[in-house]
Structure formats: structure tokens, C-alpha cells
């Protein structure tokens, strides 16, 4: 008896999984695509992040990934036929340096950004405070600003992708569907799923830190681990922070959304895969937040939440075919939402069209870790 068969099985219905499915369907190759997710809508990292995107990076490949993605965000309402809107906000992104070393790093990457057409500029401390009057002066040296950067609603983007996928007769998206077992024989994959098995010609894993456990039985591996984070949202306030902020030293990003709420994502070294709010988180985060933005002391916290993103050894995405033929991975390394349009397009190139010519893909393949040379993004991990 033959199993129900699909051409591509995508595991994970987050930003990478849904974007890949949408771009694959857009190729109109007739390929049947099944997306499965063990959680529910937006329940993973794509629905739990700070919603920001920026082109201000130091490596060309990161800048290009985000430039292509931003071009998509700017036209996504039409491309995805989503008149409700995606809450796209382009009030700029201010990357703050609280040490001379961090400021020097911001300065050093400016030529690359400008060569690629990113309209970024360096600001001194006074200019930063003029832009965000609530900023604390403590240790503030300056920042880098790009007015085209901003944020997009993760929920709206995921819902737009989901609805667009579901309108395509060749795509099926199933939530609460877990991959119990993944095997390969006779050139195709036999997959045990909640609700019954399927056979897939190709499999794309978009489950970030959960990728290794799916690969292990097939003898393949990619180096990625979980990175739990927690976030805070305040009650709505009149505008206090116009651009998105990120402080390289505080490890905090700040996004005041249109309805006035201010969202803080605070990174803290922690292991595990729990999305629970931890008891000591607020006591850890609040002094950092009031140091960065002293007027926040009087702002009521509405809620906290947690999420689990992923991190790879060089903090770059891992995109490509594994040592198992027909088995692909797209691992985000904590920037899944902001790079998802470009990555979805690349995965369609690769999985549907077998096109391996993209120069970025060539740099981000899973085999790069075998050489021992890591490409390092300078605008990360400045602490």
C-alpha cells in the first residue's frame, strides 16, 4: 500500500517554513507542498520576537539578506494579497554604543553599508538624545542610525503567509502535527506524523534549534543550539521611542509599536527550551532598562513572555542541503523574521529549481563548519 505522497515536506510553520512554502508555490511547478508544525499558529520563535528588522550589519551577506527582505516587506500587502496590512513601521533603527570600542565598530562597518546603498549615519551622544529624548547619558557614546529600518508585525506577516499558502491548492498547512520519525529509503523520505504517515521526495527542516534531533536518526548534523529569551510589553504610552533601539552592551532591543505599547526583548545567557517567564527575569531586566531609558521607571509593565530562538557557531543562518540528499535545512540563528522573505526565495531556488548559484547560499551552507573557518558578523555580541 502506498503512502500519501508530497513533493516537499516542510517541518515548521514559522517565518522560514511559511515563507519557503509560499515562494515554492509561487514557482508554479505543480509541486505538492505540506507544511507541518507541532505547535499552533505563531507559537514558536517567529511569533515571540521583538519584530524589528534592520539593514545595519557589517557583513555584506547579512546586509543583502535584509535588503532583499525589506523590499519584500514594502510590497508584501500586494504580493500576499493582505489588505489588513502588516503594521510595517519604518521610523528607523538606532544601534547604540555605550563604549568607545562599540562605537569604533559601528564606524568601521559604515563603508560596507554605504557601498551597498544602506542610508546609515553615525550619531554622537547628543544627536542620539535629540532623536530619543528619554535616553540615559550613562556611558552613552553614540550610535548608528538608518531611517529605512523598522519593524513589522510577526502575527500579521505569519497570518498573511498562512492565508496566501492556504489559497494555493498545492499547499497544505497542518498545525498540532508532530514529526514522530523521519527515515529515508529508495530515494524518498518516509515520515511518521501525528495523524498518519506521508512519503516526501524532499524535506526542508525549518525548526531552528529542534533541527538536530530530527537529523540525528539519519546520521546528519548541523551545529545549532537553543537560545531562550524573554520579552516585556508595557501599557500604551504617548510616543517615547520613535526609532527601534538596540543597545549592544545592554543586550536589549526596544520597539514602541503604533498602539503605544513598548516592547523590550532582553537577552540573558540561559540554556534550555522553555518559553516560561522566569521568576527572576524582571528583577534582572528592569535596572538595565531604566539605565538605558530612565523615564521608563514610571511606565507600567503590562506583561512578560518568553520564546526560544536559536544560535549557530558563527551566529549566521545555515541554509542548504545536508549530507543526506534531498534533506535541506533553513536555520535562522535568531533573525528569522527579518530575513524570512529572502530565505524563502532562496529555499525555493534550491529545493524546487535545484539552483545553487546564489552567492549567499554558497556562504551559508551546512558544510561550512567542516572547514573550521567562521564568518563573523561584527555588529553582534559586543558585550
Amino acid at each position: 500500500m502506498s503512502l500519501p505522497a508530497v513533493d516537499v515536506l516542510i517541518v515548521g510553520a514559522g517565518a522560514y517554513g511559511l515563507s519557503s512554502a509560499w515562494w515554492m508555490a509561487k514557482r508554479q511547478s505543480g509541486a505538492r507542498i505540506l507544511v507541518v508544525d507541532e505547535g499552533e499558529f505563531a507559537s514558536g520563535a517567529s511569533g515571540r520576537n521583538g519584530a524589528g528588522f534592520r539593514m545595519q550589519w557589517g557583513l555584506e551577506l547579512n546586509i543583502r539578506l535584509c535588503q532583499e527582505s525589506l523590499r519584500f516587506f514594502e510590497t508584501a500587502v500586494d504580493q500576499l494579497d493582505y489588505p489588513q496590512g502588516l503594521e510595517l513601521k519604518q521610523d528607523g533603527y538606532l544601534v547604540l554604543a555605550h563604549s568607545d570600542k562599540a562605537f569604533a565598530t559601528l564606524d568601521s562597518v559604515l563603508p560596507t553599508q554605504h557601498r551597498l546603498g544602506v542610508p546609515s549615519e553615525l550619531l554622537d551622544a547628543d544627536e542620539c538624545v535629540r532623536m530619543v529624548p528619554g535616553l540615559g547619558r550613562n556611558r552613552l557614546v553614540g550610535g548608528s542610525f538608518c531611517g529605512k529600518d523598522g519593524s513589522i508585525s510577526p502575527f500579521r506577516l505569519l497570518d498573511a503567509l498562512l492565508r496566501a499558502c492556504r489559497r494555493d491548492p498545492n499547499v497544505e498547512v497542518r498545525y498540532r502535527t508532530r514529526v514522530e520519525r523521519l527515515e529515508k529509503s529508495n530515494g524518498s523520505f518516509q515520515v511518521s506524523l501525528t495523524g498518519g504517515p506521508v512519503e516526501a521526495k524532499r524535506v526542508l527542516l525549518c525548526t531552528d534549534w529542534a533541527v538536530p534531533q530530527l537529523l540525528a536518526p539519519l546520521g546528519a548534523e548541523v551545529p545549532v543550539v537553543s537560545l531562550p529569551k524573554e520579552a516585556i510589553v508595557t501599557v500604551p504610552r504617548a510616543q517615547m521611542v520613535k526609532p527601534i533601539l538596540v543597545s549592544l552592551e545592554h543586550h536589549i532591543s526596544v520597539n514602541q509599536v503604533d498602539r503605544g505599547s513598548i516592547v523590550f526583548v532582553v537577552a540573558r545567557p540561559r540554556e534550555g527550551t522553555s518559553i516560561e517567564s522566569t521568576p527572576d527575569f524582571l528583577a534582572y531586566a528592569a535596572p538595565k532598562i531604566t539605565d538605558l531609558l530612565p523615564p521608563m521607571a514610571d511606565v507600567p509593565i503590562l506583561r512578560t513572555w518568553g520564546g526560544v530562538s536559536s544560535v549557530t557557531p558563527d551566529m549566521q543562518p545555515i541554509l542548504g542541503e545536508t549530507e543526506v540528499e534531498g534533506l535541506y535545512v533553513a536555520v535562522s540563528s535568531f533573525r528569522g523574521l527579518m530575513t524570512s522573505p529572502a530565505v524563502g526565495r532562496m529555499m525555493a531556488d534550491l529545493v524546487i529549481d535545484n539552483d545553487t548559484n546564489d552567492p549567499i547560499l554558497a556562504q551559508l551552507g551546512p558544510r561550512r563548519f567542516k572547514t573550521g573557518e567562521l564568518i563573523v558578523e561584527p555588529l553582534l555580541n559586543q558585550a
Partner: protein
Amino acid sequence: MQRSIVVVGAGPAGLAAATEAATRGAHVTLLDEAARPGGQIYRQAHSALGDSEYAEAGERARKHDILARFQSVASRVDYRPDANVYALFGNGELHVAYGAGSEVLRPDAIVLATGVREMAIPFPGWTTPGVMFAGGAQAVLKSQRVLPGKRAVIAGCGPLPIVVAAQLLRAGGDVAALASLRPLREMLGNPRALWQGRQIFYEGLRYLRTIRRAGVAQLSAHVPIRAIGTERLEAVVLARVDAGGHVVPGAEREIACDLLAVNYGFAANSELAAMAGAELRFDADRGGWLPASDEFGRTSISGLFVAGDVAAVRGALVAEAEGQIVGAAAAVPPKSIGDATMTAALRTALGRRQRHQAFQTAVRTTLRVPRGLWNLTTDDTVVCRCENVKLRDIRSALDAGHSSLNAVKRNVRSGMGWCGGRTCLRAVAALSELHAGIAPPVIMTPRPMVRPITFGAVVAQKKAVDA
């Protein structure tokens, strides 16, 4: 070593639990969000306003007695009013804010006696100023001695609308109509239970006498289907409903009023227990999502107890008896005393709880909301007030295949606002069931904070106190 107990909530269950635990030698901290003890039912006005004469003598006596008993141990209880218990974690940490400061407590046992809130069934115009929960209207009367309206229509199910109508009349208010979802004779079906609850039943009859003597129009099987007015409530349209809760066409009447007080039962304040990870159960008639608990109030989390209406809505008399039982159970180290020994020691309180519970069981059907009533919520009706979410938005998300409360929330923001879903969550669940067949309902993931506190109050936090 002295055992430390934190009781959350100073209504009948919390007061009784604190009193009992202190009597048994425990170190008790009693946290309450209000300025004075008593909770909703025994709410005290500012002392300058004197005691209320609107409640029945029996209820006033019960209020006096429970507060007096608490007073007798008050010197041994660390009572903290105006406390905002904003989070409870599975490790037993209770996070509390007091205005500009905050504190982390880690006692040996926690008794949650957080009671209930009223459950809303959204209908067109329900957000018009002048439309209130019946208990909310009563709270204004109790705490401030102010009539919340000049001419009132009272509506809903269960006993609260009757009590509120009578108390408004006694306070000099004008009640134009009392509309009841169910006929009162339903309560008469179980004579044995009535006998056991005769104290409360007689009080109910006296409230009804007040209403009858005032000539208030009493409409059985009627509900408000529309509130009229833009700036302020001007009138209410009442309609007859059948047993399934469906509006009977052609039986509408408009009544001019500036206050509509509605109660369709209650939703348990179970957020703290849920946040800590306690096992929950769902009982639509008794408060919705309830922490699963045994006869001594023990939840699935060691050291975490629940007492009173938060454990299952059964009224103040059950709450008081249960508070005593749970206070006693929390005051002893776990497993130090066998259940049989405890049962013997608490025989009187257990018996009292059982008697009052029998009456409450007999009348619980009067609090049952028939499914059809949720059809009062139209596509244009706001369901989530904080985020201004209409039924149309929720249905659109459901139609797109979003089939859980969390998925609906992520799409339309219902429950993401100031109140964290306290007002709308039951409605979103019931409406999702009605329109998309989602069942059984799964609670939205509860997160800190139950109520907002400032960053400054967190920065000023005192470290965990092992009491």
C-alpha cells in the same frame, strides 16, 4: 519552626483561612488589593460613611462576625491592603507590588482566595457608559454610598440581580424593571436543599418582597438585547428568550433608564494558579477555568491551596467554611497529619461547607447560561474592550482556520490589553465554540503580570523573603 502562610484575598474565604491559620500558630501574611478587608460581598465603606443598612440583617451579622473573628487574631496577622499580587511562579515565589515598591515572598504555603469577577455576555451597546456589571453597581453603593444611576434596569441570572435591585431600592433608587433569564421557581425544585439553605433563601424572599412592594416590573425569561445611547445610556431594549437562550421575535420592549446592571454569573480569578502551572479544570456553571483541588483545597502544586469561589463558585457561606478548612490544612506541614485525622478535626467546618454546598448545587442551574444567549453578540459588537476587537474580527480569524484561543489572540489581540483577558476570555471561548465548534476550551497561556506594575517598582524590589 513556625510555618509561614500567605493568603491572597481578604473576602470570606481569605479572612477565614487567615484567621484559622493564625489561630493554629502559623505566621500569616494576608494580601488584599482593596483598602479594607471584606472582599466583594463584605465590602466595607470608608469608616466615615458608617455601615450599610441596605443588606439583609443576616448578611450584616455574618459580615460583622467574620470581621470580628479576624480582628481577634489581627495582632498575629501581617495584613497588607492595597497589595497587587502580580505573579506566582511554580517555584512558590509570590511577587507583590505595593505602589512604588515590590517584594518577593516565598512562604511555606500559599492560599489563593482570589474570588471571582463577573462574566460578560457582550451585546450591542454593552460598552455604553451607564451599563455596568450588577456587582460593580453594588460595589459603588457599598463602598461610596452613591447610587450609580437614577433609574435602573437590572438583568441577568442567579441571585445577584435580585439582591442588587432590592439594595438599590432601599438606598432610594428607582428600579424600572428586573429582568431574569430564568424563572425563580426553578430554585424550588429541591425542598431538602432549600431547607439546608433556608437562611439564604429567606433573605432572598425578603429582597423579593422589597422589589414587589416597590412595584418594580418583573420580567421572567427576558434579557437586554440592546443598550441605547451614545454619550450615556438612555434606554434598554429587553426581549423574551426561549429555554435555549434564543430571542423570541416580536416580544421586545424599550425601557428608559440611565443604569443597566447585568450579571450572567462569574468567572474565577484563577490566573495566579494557572500561571504557577496548577492543573485546571473547566466548569462553565461554576466559574469557568478552575484550579483542580481536593477537599482540603490542595492543588496539583505542593504548598499551593485554593479556597472559596476561586475553587468553584459557591457563594460566601461555602467560602467562609472552606476558608477555615483550607487555613487549617495549610497550617500543618504536608503529610504530617493523615487525611482521616484532619477530617475528624475539621468535622464541624466540613459539615457546614457540605450543607451550604448542597443548597448551592440545587440553585446552580439558575446560573447556567444557555448556549443560544451568545447569539446576542452580533458581528459589530465589541467583545474585547481593551483592544476594541469585534466579533467580526474573531470570526474572521476562526474562518481562516485559527482554532485555539492562543491563535485567535495572536490574530486579533483579544485578551492582549490592559485586563489580560479577564473580561473577555470567557466570551471569546464561548463565541469560538458557538461559531467554530472549538471544544473543550483551553485557557490562554497566563503570563505575568496579573496587573501592571512599573519598572521602578521592580527596581525597588526587596529580595525573596523566606518568611
